[in-house]
């Protein structure tokens, strides 16, 4: 019965008053509990571990020693500078590219605009690790597929060199890879802003006598500035956490970025030092959280600014004249560099016989042997099975939690909501590596160690859920807000309990959004890299880190074949997402936008 008597005189009145909004509201309470377990506990253990002498399982005494060690060498500052530098330069480059592309697609008469939109989305089908690996083959200083012919050309001009001219294993290489990877996300965010833009505002300026250029300068750009800033900030935060390029292109040249420094400290160097890794992680997270607070400020401002009009009116497109085809060629070039070239390289690699170095002009016979042997290898079945279980479990659990949390945020009452909103957004600031090592601490130390999931698929699912919960909650927030409150209230006045209303009314109505989120989380979990890399052992291998491990052991053709198969699976999912986005206008990229980075 839902009768509640407020006669608990055992509690002080202040506590009773504070708890009052929470009573009868199990949704808010359970949502807070789940988020505390998923978000606050790992964060707390990270901080605790950073203050202890020992390692997980044997923490030892409290100490500040690790902080002293961390900040007495220049390593962390170097990594900090590199990380900020890569993210800043990468963001500027991707912002300029993405801004140009978004403008071309939405506001000009560039030909083949739908094709251009598809090209700009396709990088989603190419997991970062594959993109990065194939570009190391292309720009390897000595044997790089681009470097070798380029050196020959330079030879004609009398320039003779043994290496280069390009070297992917440099800071410049990392920036190159990062900036190209960042374009799609910013592009989608800017497209959303362009589409929400009310063309009447521009027309009003024109009617007032302003020319096209004046209108763009005095109306369009000022109105879009918050959206552009938000996209830039968002991309910057994502860039800070980018891992694959830093690992594959940075580490061989001893170029540390914060994520790779953490990874190096807890996994690669001898002996590993978890405490030190925790210190770096705390430092890194602090940085991310600060930036996230800034991001939210900008976003809340831009939301106030954005002039949403339900009108399906399209503003007039600007004529590019003779440059129309050049503009499309520019987009096509981007597609060539980010998708076609890497995909060709991977395809070619996968056809090379094993143990053949990927050198241009090799006379090795190309064959599909590696694919044929792959399917007779039972290990593949295990990895495929693991990956499918992981993505299905992650997507289902993440969306279920997101549904509960969003429902509590949008429909709940009282004080819990603000906390929930903050808690569910916080994981945006969690770098993948950091979440992974935090989970090591959680599940190897008491009291977490009595749940024996370390080294299993479950711990991967937990880690990925933490990372994706932020986006999934944003998506569900929007979806639930669109379900009229009265539809639920009609259920209550028809006699149904809150739970029955959720089950029979809210959830069925939200199915489309739920499914879209499921696919988004699933496809990201499938290509997730940093979390499984840190958390996987022999028993819980999944595809993306496995590609990297196989590659490192020198089986390039096998790794490439895995990659080709992964891309073939991701391609239809990407096309489906494109369909979804084109049909809804705002698509899945309203609000915060997704982290396309894995």
């Amino acid at each position, binding site marked *: *019965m*839902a*009768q*509640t*008597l*407020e*006669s608990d005189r055992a509690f002080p009145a202040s506590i009773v008053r504070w708890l009052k909004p929470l009573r*009868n509201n199990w949704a808010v309470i359970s949502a807070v509990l789940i988020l505390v377990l998923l978000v606050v506990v790992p964060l707390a253990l990270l901080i605790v571990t950073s203050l202890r002498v020992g390692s997980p399982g044997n923490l030892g005494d409290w100490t500040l020693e690790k902080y002293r060690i961390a900040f007495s060498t220049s390593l962390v500052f170097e990594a900090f500078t590199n990380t900020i530098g890569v993210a800043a330069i990468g963001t500027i480059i991707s912002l300029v590219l993405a801004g140009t592309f978004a403008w071309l697609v939405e506001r000009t008469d560039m030909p083949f605009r739908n094709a251009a939109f598809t090209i700009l989305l396709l990088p989603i089908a190419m997991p970062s690790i594959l993109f990065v690996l194939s570009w190391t083959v292309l720009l390897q200083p000595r044997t790089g597929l681009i470097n070798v012919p380029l050196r020959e050309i330079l030879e004609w001009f009398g320039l003779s060199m043994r290496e280069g001219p390009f070297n992917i294993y440099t800071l410049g290489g990392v920036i190159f890879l990062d900036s190209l990877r960042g374009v799609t996300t910013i592009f989608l965010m800017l497209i959303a802003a362009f589409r929400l833009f009310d063309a009447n505002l521009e027309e009003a300026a024109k009617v007032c006598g302003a020319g096209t250029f004046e209108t763009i300068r005095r109306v369009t750009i000022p109105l879009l500035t918050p959206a552009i800033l938000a996209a830039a900030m968002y991309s910057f935060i994502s860039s800070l956490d980018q891992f694959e390029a830093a690992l594959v292109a940075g580490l061989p040249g001893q170029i540390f970025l914060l994520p790779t420094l953490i990874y190096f400290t807890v996994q690669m160097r001898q002996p590993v030092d978890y405490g030190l890794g925790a210190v770096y992680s705390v430092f890194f997270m602090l940085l991310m959280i600060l930036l996230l607070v800034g991001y939210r400020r900008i976003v809340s401002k831009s939301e106030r600014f954005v002039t949403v009009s339900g009108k399906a009116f399209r503003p007039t497109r600007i004529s590019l004249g003779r440059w129309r085809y050049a503009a499309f060629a520019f987009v096509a070039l981007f597609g060539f560099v980010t998708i076609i070239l890497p995909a060709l390289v991977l395809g070619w690699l996968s056809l090379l016989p094993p143990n053949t170095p990927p050198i241009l002009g090799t006379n090795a016979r190309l064959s599909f042997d590696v694919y044929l042997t792959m399917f007779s290898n039972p290990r593949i079945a295990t990895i495929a099975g693991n990956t499918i279980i992981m993505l299905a479990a992650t997507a289902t659990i993440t969306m279920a939690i997101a549904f509960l949390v969003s429902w509590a945020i949008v429909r709940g009452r009282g004080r819990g909501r603000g906390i929930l909103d903050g808690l569910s957004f916080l994981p945006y600031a969690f770098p993948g590596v950091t979440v992974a090592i935090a989970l090591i601490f959680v599940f190897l130390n008491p009291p977490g160690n009595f749940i024996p999931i370390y080294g299993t698929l479950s711990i991967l699912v937990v880690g990925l859920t933490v990372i994706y919960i932020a986006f999934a909650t944003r998506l569900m927030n929007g979806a639930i807000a669109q379900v*009229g409150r*009265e*539809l639920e*209230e*009609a*259920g*209550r*006045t*028809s*006699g*149904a*309990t*809150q739970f*029955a209303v959720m089950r*029979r*009314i809210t959830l*069925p*109505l939200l199915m489309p959004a739920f499914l879209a989120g499921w696919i988004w989380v699933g496809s990201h979990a499938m290509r997730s890299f940093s979390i499984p890399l840190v958390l996987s052992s022999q028993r819980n291998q999944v595809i993306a880190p496995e590609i990297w491990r196989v590659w490192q052991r020198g089986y390039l053709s096998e790794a490439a074949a895995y990659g080709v198969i992964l891309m073939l699976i991701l391609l239809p999912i990407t096309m489906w997402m494109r369909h979804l986005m084109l049909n809804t206008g705002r698509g899945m990229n309203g609000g915060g936008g997704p982290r396309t980075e894995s």
Partner: protein
Amino acid sequence: MLKVDNLRKSFLSDKSVVHAVDGVSFEVGAGEFFTLLGPSGCGKSTTLRCIAGLENITSGRLLIDGELVASDKIFIEANHRPIAMVFQSYAIWPHMTVLENVTFPLSYRSAEASSRASRITRRELGMEALKMVQLDHLADRDAPYLSGGQQQRVALARALVVHPKLLLLDEPLSNLDAKLREDMRYEIKELTSRLGISTMYVTHDQAEALSMSDRIAVMSRGKILQLGTPREIYLEPQSSSVARIVGNINVFRGKKAGGSTSPMQNEIRLASGTIFRCPVVEGRSLNEDVEIMFRPELVRVRSRSAGLVSDEPDKVNTFNAQVKRVDFTGDHLKVHFETPDGEVIAKLPPDQVLPPNGEVSLVVRVENCTAH
């Protein structure tokens, strides 16, 4: 059936407290059609939502059928109150068929707990409810493929299927077009009185309130201004605010003058010096401020040449006016007149002839005036 006792509901908004419902008390008898009428934001919908159990109350008491359902200590949730509700947006679930919508409450309302066992009984009860609103032929259609009026009927059927003790209607007609609205008014009234269900109706439309209700409570700013039958509310409003909420009104201000011409009449001296007769204002002494009100449709026009002298001077007020603006709306003429004491609006028959110079006399019967 329903007893609302000093109900208060406050919200926190931007750190200031808003008293949406500020001490409202009334009772609804068994089988009564009771309406809360007021402008948007007056607290009428909030009052209804408190009764439904969709909002917790801040203070006061709510009793439905003698059972305490809300006080500062007790809060019975909506699904445990013997009510049914129709929402402004109809709130028809788009993922169900018409019949599924209508039978939904049968799974939960305790009175029909027995029918939970039998799908056939549920279907029959649902069809019966749909027949009441003449939609039984659409039972298996998906709910989104209905017109607004049909959705409205489905919502009504869904509310009536469990034979609730108290039916709550939250501006149910405001999203319908004018013609349909009039038909539905009659239909709802007919259904509820036939079934003998106590009904709580919330609207901002005075025509709905006046034509359907047994009693009306006029609300403004969280308080009930006047409670009474439609006739009382319309013809004897206790203040100009009430009069304005239930229709258009002309207001003259003046001071009580001496020398009643009859025991039932007062003389009021208007600002221009004109003497206006109106029913007795109790408790006012000489020279005190008095407000006189009369409805535009009770104003008559007489040509100036007929003179100001009336055949029954005791029973009418006659005064000069100048036509300012004429709005032809089809079924009547809405004429704005200028008088020395302010603007007067008259609602006249469409064939009313007005003199070319616009100079007329206006006549208002004393009994059609109210004064405060």
